């Protein structure tokens, strides 16, 4: 069994969101970078659990990014995984990134590929589906649970207002979200071990981007809260009906 986990780098959840270069770039000054929470907490940990249950499992991590991705890749390796591959591409749209991952995945012949539900910066929810299409394998999105039984994968995925259980035969790509596993903290042994785990750097394959970010902007600031005295809840309801017109 060979598993590939896709790891992306995102700003910390408390990072100040500001833009530079005439609002065309995310201002990275003072920003702390983390492993995208969906990748770290759910897909990676679930893959580690599978390897713990069957130590013959080969677990690889892949990141598409520049050299500044290496700290988060090492952190991911400290949590678990045998080796990592970084594809040296700094900028690119979802399709470029997906094409890089697909090319590594083709080469490696993985049975199970895991991504997070989405990156918390771009919120594309796109890379997983694109990679699955490029590899021509099934895709199960937004999985809350994943269980393996030989070649059979069973997933519970979120749908509007409920859940659905799907069954599929390997190979498959699954995007993961909350419910899949419990967040882990790397221990000292993991951190020491991660230093010597292989981290291969590959050059990207040439792909044309299909989209390009033109500019960013911030939502307009709120005007300020209108406080209603605690003993006048009817007044709140009136304002919601007559002023905000939302009920």
């Amino acid at each position, binding site marked *: 069994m060979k598993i590939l986990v896709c790891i992306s780098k995102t700003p910390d959840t408390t990072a100040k969101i500001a833009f530079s270069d005439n609002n065309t770039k995310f201002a990275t000054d003072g920003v702390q970078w983390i492993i995208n929470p969906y990748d770290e907490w759910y897909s990676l940990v679930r893959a580690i659990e599978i390897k713990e249950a069957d130590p013959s499992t080969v677990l690889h991590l892949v990141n598409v990014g520049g050299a500044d991705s290496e700290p988060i890749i090492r952190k991911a390796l400290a949590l678990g995984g045998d080796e990592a591959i970084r594809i040296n591409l700094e900028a690119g749209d979802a399709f470029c990134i997906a094409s890089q991952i697909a090319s590594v995945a083709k080469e490696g012949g993985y049975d199970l590929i895991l991504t997070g539900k989405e990156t918390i910066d771009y919120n594309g929810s796109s890379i997983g589906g694109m990679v*699955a299409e490029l590899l021509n394998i099934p895709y199960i999105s937004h999985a809350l649970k994943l269980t393996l039984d030989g070649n059979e994968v069973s997933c519970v995925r979120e749908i509007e207002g409920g859940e659905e259980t799907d069954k599929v035969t390997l190979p498959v790509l699954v995007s993961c979200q909350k419910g899949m596993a419990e967040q882990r903290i790397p221990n000292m042994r993991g951190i020491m071990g991660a230093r010597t785990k292989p981290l291969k750097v590959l050059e990207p394959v040439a792909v044309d981007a299909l989209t390009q970010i033109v500019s960013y902007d911030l939502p307009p600031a709120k005007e300020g809260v209108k406080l209603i005295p605690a003993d006048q809840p009817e007044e709140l309801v009136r304002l919601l009906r007559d002023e905000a017109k939302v009920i």
Partner: protein
Amino acid sequence: MVLVIIDHADGKIKKSSLEAATYAAELAAQTGTTAEALIAGTISEDASLLGLQGIKKVHTLSDVSLNNLDAQVHTAVISEAVEKTGATIVVFSNNSYGKSVAPRLSAKLKAGLVAGATALPDTSNGFVVRKSVFSGKAFANVGILSAKKIISLNPNAFHIADGGQKAELVPFAASVPQPKVTVTGTEKVTGEVSLSEAEIVVSGGRGLKGPENWYLVTDLAHALGAATACSRPVADSDWRPHHEHVGQTGLAIAPNLYIAIGISGAIQHLAGVNRSKTIVVINKDPEAPFFKAADYGIVGDAFEVVPKITEAVKKLKGIS
């Protein structure tokens, strides 16, 4: 031509697909073309009513196997429809269906995808679509460079038109591949409003002390016809199911009205809810950060204030 892909469940077209249909029709008008729809699977409603949203033609592929989602199969079918109808722009709702299928279609057609669109594109110079990024903390304006284009519209980001004429129904014949994914069960929270599509959401945080007090949230939600949500620690403590968790690492929502009860308003929580049109905060701490992001607020004890709000809503709606 702009082709909107209609998502449906239990025989009914989803509200978010009616938004996407309206968006497709307005986009078609803006670019001097027409909007058509594709329904893959079977519905019990009259599909020609999509005309009310401005759709001219509805292509129907009434194959019951398509009522289950295998993203690969749906992608194959939609891609055939795009080819046969000559569509140049495909519109999805950015709901669980759109998130499963639109990226695959993008890779298959080499058509640039903007997922999470919040407005009609700016076509004055290129084709630039506005989308929500950083979990609602900012917007990006994204240019689509390819000839074929795909847009997934965020739920609740667009209105639903209802003034058009009935649409023409055209059966669409496609070869439906054998699915590799089998759906072995679905579990729906019946009788409740789906969170991502809800117009009103009532949400509770750790300030409510325990699951036994959730009647405060659900009573108000019932009176308003609202969906219920919660903060992350509430779901983590199993006071409420995980699918109710909103925020940066949960669901991002954009209802017309979001009522937050006993939630402090941490940055990660705000990220998932700050696209709501109107925000009401009820918190006993006047310094709670949520008040800075709110439109209306009551500083007070939820256990005293919320039942009174529920009563006032019931009175307004004539429910006793």
